[in-house]
């Protein structure tokens, strides 16, 4: 039984070489043997997760069988292209840049989102920047209620709490971005007979931090069993440029900078990793609190929040329901 009284960050330490060997072997078996595909396509964002997955694919399939895609749009952060290019240059990836801004405009992605924002902030104009964010609920004890933050070109800022209808419309419009990206990825998969490789880590996968049939869709998710801190260990092992690994994880979905913790997790990734591990492995909240350096009450709130998100993630993970016990053909 796990001795939880000495619970520390060390619990998430991995042997990078061993882990890479395991994932590379699994990637080859899955893509070549199970799916009979010739290589891998993946979208890269200049973030640590997609960078690590790209290098894993390189190790598994070789340079000529990996295609990376950069897919910026109007709200993409200014440093995304630079960070992606750092990775492409360092590992000499075959990359195609597909700007999806035009497609999103045709889908009225920005208009739908901006109209929904105007339902709560009528002053909001199309040339203003925006994001939605959660309060740090483990500190305040509050329920998870999103607020929208907007900023005019002159720097005037307004924030308001979102009602359910506006929140749902903003998210539905923004999710078009991830779904368009996946559509482009599968275009290249089919034209090359490659498999699509997803890039979620374990916390994202477990907590439903993905868009159903958007970035949640993929043929293989090779790091979905790794905590974010473990992904960073692989990044260090691979020598991924520090500019990528030192950058705070963002969603790169809204025009104002938005970290992943303010959009979804409420807490930074190190704490999130330890809390998820703690909850899944029945570590008492007081032991996790000691390891993180926060009070037990806060960890209890985080545990509740994680449990609630696990419940919501069930729908996101579900495949279409088929009636009358009809099963798909076995591979």
């Amino acid at each position, binding site marked *: 039984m796990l001795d939880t009284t000495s619970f520390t960050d060390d619990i998430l330490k991995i042997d990078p070489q061993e882990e890479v060997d395991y994932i590379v072997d699994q990637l080859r078996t899955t893509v070549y043997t199970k799916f009979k595909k010739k290589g891998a396509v993946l979208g890269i964002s200049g973030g640590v997760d997609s960078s690590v997955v790209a290098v894993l694919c390189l190790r598994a399939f070789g340079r000529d069988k990996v295609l990376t895609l950069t897919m910026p749009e109007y709200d993409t952060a200014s440093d995304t292209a630079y960070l992606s290019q750092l990775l492409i240059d360092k590992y000499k990836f075959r990359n195609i840049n597909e700007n999806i801004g035009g497609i999103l405009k045709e889908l009225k992605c920005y208009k739908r989102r901006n109209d929904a924002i105007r339902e709560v902030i009528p002053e909001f104009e199309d040339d203003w920047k925006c994001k939605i964010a959660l309060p740090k609920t483990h500190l305040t004890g*509050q*329920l998870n*209620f999103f607020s929208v933050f907007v900023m005019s070109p002159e720097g005037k800022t307004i924030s308001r*709490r979102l009602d*359910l209808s506006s929140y*749902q419309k903003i998210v539905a419009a923004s999710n078009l971005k991830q779904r368009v990206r996946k559509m482009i990825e599968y275009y290249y998969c089919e034209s090359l007979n490659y498999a699509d490789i997803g890039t979620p880590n374990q916390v994202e996968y477990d907590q439903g931090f993905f868009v159903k049939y958007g970035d949640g869709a993929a043929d293989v998710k090779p790091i979905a069993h790794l905590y974010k801190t473990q992904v960073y260990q692989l990044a260090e092992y691979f020598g991924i440029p520090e500019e990528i690994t030192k950058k705070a994880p963002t969603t790169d979905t809204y025009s104002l900078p938005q970290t992943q913790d303010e959009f979804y997790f409420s807490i930074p990734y190190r704490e999130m990793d330890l809390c998820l591990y703690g909850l899944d492995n029945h570590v008492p909240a007081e032991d996790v609190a000691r390891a993180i350096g926060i009070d037990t009450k806060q960890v209890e709130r985080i545990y509740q929040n994680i449990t*609630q998100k696990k*419940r919501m993630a069930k729908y996101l993970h579900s495949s279409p329901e088929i009636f009358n016990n009809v099963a798909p053909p076995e591979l």
Partner: protein
Amino acid sequence: MQAIIDNLRHFITDNFLYGVDISNLQNDTSLINSGLVDSAGIMEVVAYVEETFNISVDDADLLPTNFDSMNGIAHFINNKKMRL
């Protein structure tokens, strides 16, 4: 108080349980932890409370003690109405 709880019970049954009988649901059962209502559902509950009972819910009011059980919601509504 009982009238408010009956009203809330009706709302929760219609909106989150699609008519399934919850007559054995305790008034102090956690709506979130029991899985009856998710975070989007709580947003719906808050909107319903504001509209039906004609009160305004401030950001500082968005606490589990106020919205995570029928008792909590009923107490919250009563307290708000007394302050009006």
